[in-house]
């Protein structure tokens, strides 16, 4: 793997730490400690990424590549310290390596180990120093962890600490500490965690606040989530490959909200790969492009890949509505050390299927949401149909008939206004249209009975129809 920036390699080390935590079945802690030198000291930033997961097998460091242009000699000397120990090891091993050496020539220098003194623990610390201001690095790390929270990995706690060493001594800032007041039960599936994570993310305005924003989302009804999971089963080599999709539609209560959201009509698609935030691949972009959004009543105005993030822009979405999408691709059985190679075609199909399932799930749970453009059009007739039907009932001079109709809707004939019947009919019609819309996604559309196909109707003659005398019919001279 080749990295184009210190940030990238930094995030990679964090991802690796997460994987080691995941492999451990214990509760783990992942700490990122950024030690800033005093301002006099040429802005040296010492970075320590430590986890209490299973120890590292060191292989992961072997293939790391280091793009000179990206990192530059002046930012980092390429020297990396790694301390690691497994639960069964008796000492903590300490290695050093220089990434500026080419991968083949690279040597792993073993430094003196520290004894564990019989204490049973495992963990890894990656440590290196760069010439960089902490302000540059911190936001990315922060954003990374914000996203990580969406995954809600059950057994990992995160912390990011910045230590300032200055004239007055050392000052410590605990910038990030994952605390979840109501964690999902430990038995929850990855999908359920992801879903609740995304819901929380939305309610907390993109995890930008510590608690859900009550003014924007006064009720849970404001946030509607659907989840889908697609799994590769046919292909043996890829069997067990999973794609999870979560779609959350949120509506900020226009009246009560006092928040200012900049998000607008665009949706950023979060793409996770093997439990880490990841850039989206071109093939996944294609998958997103090829989804039939219209059948969910959505009109995709544009899709752009902005620095690895897919940005979907919608057309005609109400200004207070927002859509959030998360995709998570991982292997069911293996914990993968992040790598670049991807099964593009496979991913593409998995994404499409997962998204479709998520949409269907959403529609199933929330009636009237994401109706297809088609169904919406048909729904627009419902008020008229209802009004006419109600008219047919109410204008009838047969009260027996009227009573019968009312009772079919469970209404009292006496004392019920016409609007109630009309509303009743309208709701019934809409619910049938919605039901049809949902069904039409599940099974292939039935062949609609043809309406106007007739061999001789083409010759449809209109002349026989007597039209009203119009002004065009006769000019004053043909008396």
């Amino acid at each position, binding site marked *: 793997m080749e990295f184009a920036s210190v940030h990238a390699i930094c995030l990679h080390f964090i991802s690796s730490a997460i994987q080691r935590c995941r492999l451990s079945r214990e509760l783990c802690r992942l700490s990122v400690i950024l030690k800033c030198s005093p301002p006099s000291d040429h802005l040296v930033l010492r970075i320590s990424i430590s986890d209490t997961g299973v120890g590292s097998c060191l292989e992961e460091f072997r293939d790391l590549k280091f793009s000179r242009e990206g990192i530059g000699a002046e930012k980092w000397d390429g020297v990396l310290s790694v301390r690691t120990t497994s639960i069964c090891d008796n000492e903590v091993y300490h290695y050093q390596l220089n990434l500026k050496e080419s991968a083949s020539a690279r040597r792993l220098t073993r430094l003196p180990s520290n004894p564990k003194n019989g204490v049973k623990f495992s963990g890894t610390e990656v440590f290196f120093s760069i010439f960089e201001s902490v302000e540059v690095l911190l936001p990315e790390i922060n954003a990374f962890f914000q996203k990580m929270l969406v995954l809600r990995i059950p057994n990992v706690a995160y912390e990011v600490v910045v230590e300032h060493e200055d004239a007055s001594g050392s000052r410590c800032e605990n910038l990030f500490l994952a605390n979840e007041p109501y964690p999902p039960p430990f038995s929850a599936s990855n999908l359920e965690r992801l879903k609740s994570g995304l819901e929380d993310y939305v309610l907390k305005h993109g995890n930008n606040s510590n608690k859900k924003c009550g003014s924007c989302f006064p009720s849970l009804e404001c946030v509607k989530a659907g989840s889908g999971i697609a799994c590769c089963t046919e292909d043996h080599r890829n069997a067990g490959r999973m794609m999870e999709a979560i779609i959350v539609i949120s509506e900020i209560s226009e009246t009560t909200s006092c928040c200012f959201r900049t998000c607008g009509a665009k949706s950023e698609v979060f793409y996770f790969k093997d439990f880490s935030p990841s850039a989206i691949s071109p093939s996944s972009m294609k998958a997103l492009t090829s989804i039939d959004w219209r059948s969910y009543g959505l009109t995709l105005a544009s899709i752009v890949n902005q620095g690895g993030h897919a940005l979907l822009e919608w057309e005609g979405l109400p200004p207070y509505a927002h859509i959030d999408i998360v995709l998570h691709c991982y292997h069911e059985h293996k914990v993968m050390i992040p790598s670049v190679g991807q099964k593009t075609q496979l991913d593409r199909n998995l994404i499409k299927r997962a998204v479709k399932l998520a949409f269907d799930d959403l529609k199933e749970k929330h009636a009237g949401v994401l109706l297809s453009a*088609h169904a919406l*059009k*048909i729904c627009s*007739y419902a008020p*008229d*149909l209802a009004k*006419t*039907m109600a*008219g*047919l*009932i109410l*204008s*009838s*001079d*047969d009260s027996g*008939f009227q009573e*019968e*109709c009312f009772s*079919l*809707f*469970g209404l009292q004939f006496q004392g019920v206004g016409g609007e109630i019947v009309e509303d009743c*009919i309208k709701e*019934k*019609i809409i*619910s*049938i*249209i919605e*039901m*049809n819309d949902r069904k*039409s996604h599940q099974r292939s559309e*039935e062949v*609609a*009975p*043809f*309406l*106007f196909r*007739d*061999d*001789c*109707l083409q*010759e*449809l*003659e*209109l*002349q*026989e*129809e*007597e*039209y*009203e*005398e119009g002004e065009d019919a006769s000019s004053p001279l043909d008396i």
Partner: protein
Amino acid sequence: MEGKRSSSERSVLLRKIREFTRTIVEDLSNGRSPIVLIDRFRNYCTNPNAICYCSTDLLNGKETLTLRRESHVHRLDVLLRVLLIVQKLLQENRHGSKRDIYYMHPSVFSEQSVVDRAINDICILMQCSRHNLNVVSVGKGLVMGWIRFLENRRKFDCINRPNMAHPIPVHVEEVKDIVSVARYILVVEKESVFERLANDQFCNANRCIVITGRGYPDIPTRRFLRLLIDKLCLPTYCLVDCDPYGFDILTTYRFGSMQMAYDAKYLRCPEVCWLGAFPSDSEKYCLPQQCLLPLTAQDRKKIEAMLNRCYLQREVPKWRLELELMLQRGVKFEIEALSVHSLSFLSKEYIPSKIQELCSESEFTV
């Protein structure tokens, strides 16, 4: 007076409408998509050699309207709106025209033909004729000759002045007490020919009834003709222009129109004989060349389409031959062309001789 028959017909129809409404309400209340099945009729197909049932008034498939397709829903919307209007008309026993109905929701209906189709659909659903819905058109037909009848309480005494035009009543179902001493009925395509005959005192010289629908006949005219034929059992002759429209008008009288195919059995008049003008008449009566107009491309297209109508081959092969001849000659002419030599030619010579011909022909074949 306002016949009992018609009031009972109305209540039957109103019941049918309620029945229809209730079915839909039931479906809705059960969360089912309502399904409206509309029978399809046609009175001819375009395969002249087919062994078809076009003449038997059997229905020809069904159309299914559901809530699944937008076009269906729109059609349903229109259908229900028109049905509501019809229900009101029937309950109040008023009559409305198609145009009136159109104007209740012009932007929804968008054009008259949409309403027309809905009315036809309702007739098919309710198994009735259009006038049963109290939907009437403005009458444009005319009648004169040896006939007297009552419409409601209004007396039409044509015999009193047999050469005076009377409007054909719009409410044909109210026509009764028909008295006639006519020997035949003459149907002419256009008003100007009707007037020619009136001016020539044709009905003084000939014991007949003359009817015109002024172009394509409207429903009252056709029903009135049907009624006269049923009641009076008179031979009926039809005089049209020798052009594709004239021929089409002729077939409309005899076979009915495609749009009204569902009601054809009440509208068509199989007794109608084609009196003229035939393509061969231009030579037979030495029409001047100036009176013969070349067929336009559109005329040819229309003729070719008409030639394929199955009923021609099956029921009136001779008509079809004449139509083919029209196409071959490539010319058309109007009835007025026959009056070129003498104004009274039509009434004094042409019509009597044509009727003579047809009579001797039928005697011969019988």
